[in-house]
């Protein structure tokens, strides 16, 4: 996935490594993020997503390897890099002593945005994240989704060309998630480069042009969501719930009707080009299923195929 020299890579990581004492948090990863794309890090808890983001955001020194962000060195030019990026951290860190609007005003000062520019820009941002009614409210009483949107607005006060989003929708209800996705999509259309970490496959599929899958501090695969599914999974997946007896019977001949089978504790997944055909065969052979669901393959299946584990426990 590396680009040739002189390409429009906004972030270039080579053998990027982060170690905390004995613990390898990021183990020699390589990736490039191109200008204008939405790039994802998909992985389970502890995979090293936040550690990677923090190195890009210049708030954690690299242990080894090299990293360029907007053509600059995070070690020697951290203030310059930070002036041009926006960060949405995994956990909100809004200033709860200030109101919604004051949070943005104060942050604009940290970035030296001139007053006369900051004023209208903040009005616009408050509207963009739909917090106009809450502009004078303190932060504390806001809902999780509102806080998240305010954090996103705050990350935009310096009009960054690169936005780092660490699990932007974790903990939000579906409606709040869709609102955030919608805003992120609009930002991307305006040309802002997005780097997103998530352990939701649907988020990665919705938002990311390209992504890397991380597990245990390493990148295990990379590509576009569609690409990865095509490469590592079949088109469809048949999900079955069965009694133990039926599981035993199925096991004897199931390999004949599917490319690959995952025996999870609560479910059986059959990877196949046609889920309906497979299900019909199973019923023909007299196996009783408690539930049966045919669905399109997802990034979850890619992760399962590669690591043998589920993405979200």
């Amino acid at each position: 996935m590396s680009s040739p020299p002189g390409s429009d890579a906004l972030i270039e990581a080579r053998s990027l490594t982060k170690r905390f004492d004995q613990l390898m948090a990021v183990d020699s990863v390589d990736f490039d993020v191109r200008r204008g794309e939405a790039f994802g890090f998909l992985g389970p808890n502890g995979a090293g997503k936040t550690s990677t983001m923090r190195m890009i955001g210049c708030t954690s020194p690299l242990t080894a390897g090299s990293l360029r962000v907007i053509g600059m060195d995070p070690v020697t030019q951290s203030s310059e890099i930070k002036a041009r990026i926006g960060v949405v951290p995994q956990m909100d860190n809004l200033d709860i002593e200030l109101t919604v609007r004051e949070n943005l005003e104060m942050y604009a000062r940290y970035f030296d945005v001139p007053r006369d520019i900051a004023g209208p820009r903040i009005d616009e941002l408050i509207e963009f994240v739909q917090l106009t009614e809450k502009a004078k409210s303190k932060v504390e009483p806001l809902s999780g989704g509102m806080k998240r949107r305010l954090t996103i607005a705050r990350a935009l006060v310096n009009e960054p060309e690169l936005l780092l989003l660490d699990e932007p929708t974790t903990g939000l209800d579906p409606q709040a998630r869709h609102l955030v996705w919608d805003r992120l999509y609009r930002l991307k259309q305006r040309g802002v480069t997005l780097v997103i970490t998530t352990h939701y496959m649907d988020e990665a599929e919705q938002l990311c042009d390209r992504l890397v899958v991380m597990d245990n501090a390493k990148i295990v695969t990379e590509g576009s969501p569609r690409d990865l599914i095509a490469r590592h999974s079949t088109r469809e997946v048949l999900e079955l719930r069965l009694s133990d007896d039926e599981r035993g019977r199925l096991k004897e001949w199931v390999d004949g009707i599917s490319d690959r089978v995952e025996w999870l504790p609560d479910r059986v997944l059959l990877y196949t080009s046609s889920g309906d055909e497979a299900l019909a065969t199973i019923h023909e052979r007299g196996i009783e299923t408690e539930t049966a669901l045919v669905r399109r393959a997802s990034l979850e299946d890619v992760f399962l195929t590669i690591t043998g584990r589920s993405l979200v426990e």
Partner: protein
Amino acid sequence: MNAAKVVRRNVTVFWRAWRFSFFLSVLSPVMFLSAMGLGLGSMVSETDAFGGVDYVDFFATGMLAATCMQAGVFNATYPIMMKMMWQRNYEAMLASPLEVRDIFLGELASIGLMLAQVAVPFAGVMALFGVFDSPMAILAIPVAVLLGLACASVIMAFTATLQTDEAYTWLFRFVVTPLFLLSGTFFPIDELPLWGKVVAQATPLYHGVELVRQLAIYELEASALWHLGYLLVMLGIGTALGMRNLERRLVP
């Protein structure tokens, strides 16, 4: 100056409650000087032990320094831990062009302003009680602030290493309170046994108190330089250590 942005943030928040805060800054010395200075002082007729001044003068100068020490220490504990761990304000600041040194110096400067806001009204009340009789006394204010800052810098360095606030209970009970009582605030350390005297002389409060007294109620002596030097060196060490510790903490 990026540190000024941190000060600005703190002043904005502090400003909301300034009336109440100012009220406390005035009320506290009025109460102490009335009760301890005049009340207790009226029973202390022997002034030789206090260098020939009234007890209220002796007590008020000690109390000015001790109050600034306490305020300096306190403001380097819970309020800093709050912003470092619980509300994660520093993480947010670090995602902007601010760096760790800006945060440390900005917090220290904010504490300095806060201390001035304590020391100036305190000295004003002292003047009303007739404690001062030389214009030099005005220098007692920056000295008291310096004492508070020196303590704050060291305690901030300590706070940067903490994972919980449990240690603060110990800090206040077994360090701050004994210092407060035994560093010459209420009575001259000459009254202590020899070992107590040696310990007292090693504390920052003793040096702050001595310097304040030399400026405000006694004659200035050569030892003033030694007291001043002690406080400046302490501030320097606290700042260097604090920036290092905070860097380790915030940028792992």
